[in-house]
């Protein structure tokens, strides 16, 4: 194996020695890009909400104080047994039909009526939610197997652009090598005659509650 490694490296070096070798960069070209004009906080949240719902995800609003109730209202619609990450805030789950993920089996998770999680951040320009295994987000399988995912996004965590999101996520990667999942709407496929069908393997229903949106 070492010899193959050396062979590939030698082939790369031979190939690059022949071509021109532009200067070695110490910064990313990404940082040369012009930043987008900033939006007002309420316009930012509005854009996020609009673009999430364009993926056919339901979007609602709540205050921090009313969050437990807001979650309860949604959960009452679809079932009686939900799962939440092991470190999901206690004050939120107390009155809810939720089981904590304390080493649940894959089968236990898959048979739940849904999952409730927090999130790392939201991206307004693309209507995306990012999970980085931080507080209240749990291991990846938890937000994957149930057919319904209710995701809580704090308004203050919403950024405008993809590069801003990557800037913020750098710490998650570097400090704790966090696994990341970007979610933009429910799972979908266009493989059958290019008709978009929501829901193949991931949660077929995605709902988002935006918390403490300015001006609401």
């Amino acid at each position, binding site marked *: 194996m070492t010899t193959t490694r050396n062979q590939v490296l030698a082939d790369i070096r031979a190939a690059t020695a022949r071509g021109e070798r532009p200067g070695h960069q110490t910064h990313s070209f*990404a940082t040369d890009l012009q930043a987008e004009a900033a939006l007002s906080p309420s316009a930012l949240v509005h854009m996020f909400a609009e673009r999430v719902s364009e993926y056919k995800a339901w979007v609602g609003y709540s205050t921090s104080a009313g969050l437990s109730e807001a979650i309860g209202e949604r959960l009452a619609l679809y079932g009686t047994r939900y799962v939440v990450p092991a470190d999901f805030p206690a004050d939120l789950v107390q009155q809810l039909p939720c089981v904590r993920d304390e080493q649940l089996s894959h089968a236990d998770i898959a048979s739940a009526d849904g999952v409730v999680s927090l999130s790392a951040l939201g991206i307004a320009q693309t209507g995306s939610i990012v999970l980085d295994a931080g507080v209240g987000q749990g291991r990846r399988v938890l937000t994957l197997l149930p057919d319904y995912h209710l995701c809580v996004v704090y308004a203050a965590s919403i950024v405008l652009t993809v590069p801003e999101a990557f800037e913020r996520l750098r710490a998650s990667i570097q400090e704790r*090598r966090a*696994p*990341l999942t970007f979610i933009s709407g429910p799972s979908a496929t266009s493989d059958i005659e290019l008709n978009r069908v929501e829901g193949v393997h991931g*949660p077929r229903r995605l709902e988002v509650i935006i918390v403490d949106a300015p001006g609401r």
Partner: protein
Amino acid sequence: MKPDSVIIELSPEFSVGAKQALQNTQLRRNMGKATQTIRAKRATVVGELPNWESLRDAGERIKAETMAHLDVYIERLEKNIQAAGGTVHWASTAAQANEIVTKLIQATKSKHIIKVKSLTTDEIRLNEALEAAGITPIETDLAELIIQLAHEKSSHILVPAIHKNRSEIRELFQKAMHLPDLTDEPKELAAAARTFLREKFMTVKVATSGANFAIAETGSVCVVESEGNGRMCLTLPDVLITVMGIEKILPRWEDLGVFMQLLPRSSTGERMNPYTSIWTGVHPGDGPQEFHIVLLDNGRTQVLGDSVGRQTLHCIRCSACINICPVYERTGGHAYGSVYPGPIGAILTPQLVGTEHAASLPYASSLCGACYDVCPVKINIPEVLVHLRGRVVREKHSHVSGWLDPESIGMSGLGQVFGNRMAYEGAQTMGKLAQWLFVHDGYIENGPGPLGAWTAMRDLQAIPDQTFRQWWRERNEHDDHA
């Protein structure tokens, strides 16, 4: 080679197969609808970003810089993946990569694996290698599953079953999944696939994947997808094996932010694809606790060494060039005889397998330049095509029969010969006849010269009897009559 063969080659018998393909109106309807829909969606979401052109510039510059210092970045990637608990393997050839993957799976004792759609594993024909070793690969991408159940080949890099309609898919599913009452509603078909594959996701302990990007700075690997089958394969099994071409590396974390804007908008015409997974080695208590990555060369360092051809390695497989291409729209993907169809296939395949074995592909283009305009990393596809045509001609010169070759004569000054279709096709016919010596059952088994070593390990698909140009022309003629 006697020029008479031209006449034999062009006799009606040879075109029977193509005529049948031509009459496949379903194929053409599917293709036309598909490419037009995707094109319109792409144009809308690209128009939404005011800095699209600077993003393309950044994409191009990041890739060019990566290629120039690939040795530095690939060693950095290796170090960081290892530091995060992953194991790094290297493969010069497809055969080596297949052997590594097969052994890793055998060590787990698993007889099945679940697979995320990956062009790289298609390129090395991993499925065939695994089947030969008694391991059953299960494709989990809906379109790949359709293709696998139909025992067919992909015709598009993004929507591999683009040539199949819903009633054809229903029939396949009815049989394979024992669902006699299944209708052809896309929603029901997707639900059938969900149920069928859920059981596999929950039980199979080994998965393979490709990679869209890998970040040298952090050792992170990224897979972009829609259906969630990728997340399943990357999360549920105990062992994950990723096969990645060495050109997929990005130097820094921020670089990925550029490509996550370029790729979804260019490929599916969405602001963002439904799911993107990024993992860094092994995450304790979350996902596979054993992670292997195979870094694959398989002809890429040769492309790297060609100063004009090198930009081909910048490709992020978005398929925008395929969707915009007027030639692809009419012929479909199978005409390119490779896992990489369309304009990108026309430049990548000949460079990976050698121009002498895909001599007609650099001509599968009208040089209209539409592919260059949409390419998110600004690969100058027409420039590479012309460069490869030059190489085809030079290679013919170096052979004894080179002087007989009307194409060589054309390129050396007699423009009217080059413009003469009969003469040009005569040249291609000669190439095909020469190839006969090595072809068995549609595959080139013992290629001449340096290719011998390459084909000894991997069967090369031969140039079809009907060249791209012939097929194209006959399709046009048919259109004129339609």
